[in-house]
């Protein structure tokens, strides 16, 4: 727990940026460039495929520019816009619930010693280490019986399993760096509990909690197996729809769906980077 707590990205974006500003050697720079190519390369054919068709070996550059995949994806009958909305709804709901349950638990784990703490730690870590397939298969029958299988709320509940541990771990690391004395000072100066929360706790914690929420959102967003099992195939999120077109060999449509599948995560990333930057700016002006 301690190691996890310390390890997780406490304002990772700011750190990376600060590190990035330093001077560099040529070797280091080219190694980094090579790594970046590896990281981004798989996404290039995806983008190209979305704007062409009949792009056969050995053509390196596609012969035709064709936007029909995008027309087809955005048509009313494709189900893709609905899936995009569904995915966003599921990821936001799962993130919200995970934050609701996870942030207080993170605070408790970071700032308090209590009997049974070790058990709680194990319970929090276990979903990260135990592959979710078995759990989902166990839940499936119950969810079917109570009418949750194949529904959006059922999938949201299932997504809490992998997202909650990340929220707890990140917020634990946030709280372990948090000076509760500031809350005490505010209280002793006469602030009500809600005022303390609004004017002291939240502003101080916002950047770290934004990272926690970002992690939760991304983890939920990329779920495949859990959604497939618990959703009984009836809750087509973007990854599921994408797979349908991949298994059908429609590379153009799959490419367009893949691009759409990446966008919300990038938006979430940019949004949380904004929050981090704003917090850093605030820190600079106040200190």
């Amino acid at each position, binding site marked *: 727990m*301690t190691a*996890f*707590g*310390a390890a997780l990205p406490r304002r990772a*974006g700011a*750190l*990376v*940026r600060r*590190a*990035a*500003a*330093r001077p560099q050697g040529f070797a*280091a*720079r080219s*190694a980094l460039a090579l*790594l970046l190519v590896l*990281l*981004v*390369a*798989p996404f*290039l054919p995806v983008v190209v495929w979305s704007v062409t068709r009949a792009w056969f*070996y050995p053509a*390196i550059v596609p012969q035709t520019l064709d936007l029909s995949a995008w027309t087809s994806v955005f048509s009313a009958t494709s189900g893709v816009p609905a899936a995009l909305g569904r995915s966003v709804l599921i990821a936001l709901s799962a993130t919200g619930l995970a934050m*609701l*349950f996870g942030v*207080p638990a993170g*605070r408790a*784990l970071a700032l308090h010693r*209590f009997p049974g703490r070790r058990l*709680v730690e194990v*319970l*929090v870590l*276990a*979903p*990260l*280490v*135990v*592959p979710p*397939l*078995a*759990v*989902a298969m*166990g*839940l499936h*029958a119950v969810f079917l019986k109570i009418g949750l299988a194949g529904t959006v709320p059922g999938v949201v509940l299932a997504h*809490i*399993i992998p997202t*909650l541990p990340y929220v*707890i771990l990140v917020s634990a690391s946030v709280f372990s760096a948090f000076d509760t004395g500031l809350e005490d000072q505010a209280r002793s100066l006469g602030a009500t509990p809600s005022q303390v929360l609004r004017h002291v706790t939240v502003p101080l914690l916002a950047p770290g909690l934004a990272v926690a929420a970002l992690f939760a959102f991304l983890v939920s*967003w*990329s779920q*495949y*197996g859990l959604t497939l099992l618990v959703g009984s195939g009836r809750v087509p999120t973007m*990854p599921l729809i994408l*797979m349908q077109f*991949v298994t059908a060999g429609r590379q153009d449509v799959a490419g367009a769906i*893949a691009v759409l*599948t990446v966008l919300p995560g*990038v938006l*979430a990333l940019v949004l949380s980077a904004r929050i981090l930057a704003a917090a850093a700016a605030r820190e600079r002006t106040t200190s």
Partner: protein
Amino acid sequence: MPASIRLALMLLPAVVVLGGLFLGGLVLAIIRTVGIVPFAGRFDPTLEPWTRALQEPDLLLSILVTLWVAAASTLIATALGVGAALLLHRAGGGRLVTLLVQFNLTVPHVVTAVGMAWLLGQSGVLARLAHGAGAIDRPGDFPALVNDPWFVADIVAYVAKEVPFVAVVALAMLAAVGSAPAITARCLGATPLQAFRHVTWPLIRPGILAAATVVFAFVLGTYEVPAVLGPSHPKALPVLAYQMFTSNDIADRPAAIVVSLLMAAVGVVCLVAVRRLMRGISGLEVVR
């Protein structure tokens, strides 16, 4: 409000949710493999699913191949992730680099897998470049990296996805450690390599090991990547389990749960092993 009640209120929701959904699901899965389905009122104890699963001729091969993929992906991703973190920490390259490293965190695995298939396949982008350069004639001349028995594209996909994760964790660790210990070591005459091996690495090791454990367990349990990039035989364990779970033979389903429980058991063994490793490390509190 007494402190203990406040504490309980903070912990309770998370414990109840994880206990109910995660532990509950796990327990239901386990009892289902011995013929007990409480919610359908079925209680006919049997070990048939276990014998059926263990008799699955490809089980051992699937376990081995899944462990191979997980181990290889974890090792490479961890090494590259730590390397990237060190480079970014020391050298770096500005806002764009940051965003690009983080970009991969946002890409769902299924997208990476699909992209990898189109990049590394025998008629993929690399093969076409090789053809354009005159290195190969027909697609079959390009090395078989996708759907190959060694899961090469599979491993590359996991590496591409997990390097940013490890890098972000490692950067946080490096920032927490600061540059002072390594600089001190350099002043005392250590080479950069020695400074890393004997000073920086021991300090960041716990966090890196933890991240590596998460990566390892994740790779063990992921379905969509081997489903897209794996060969027709042998199958990765999650693919085997899912195929058994959706088999037309209803008796295969509890056996599929057995297979995924075996996978989970491997995960638990890893957790315990790494926790034991981590407990033996002093200097953990320095990190805090």
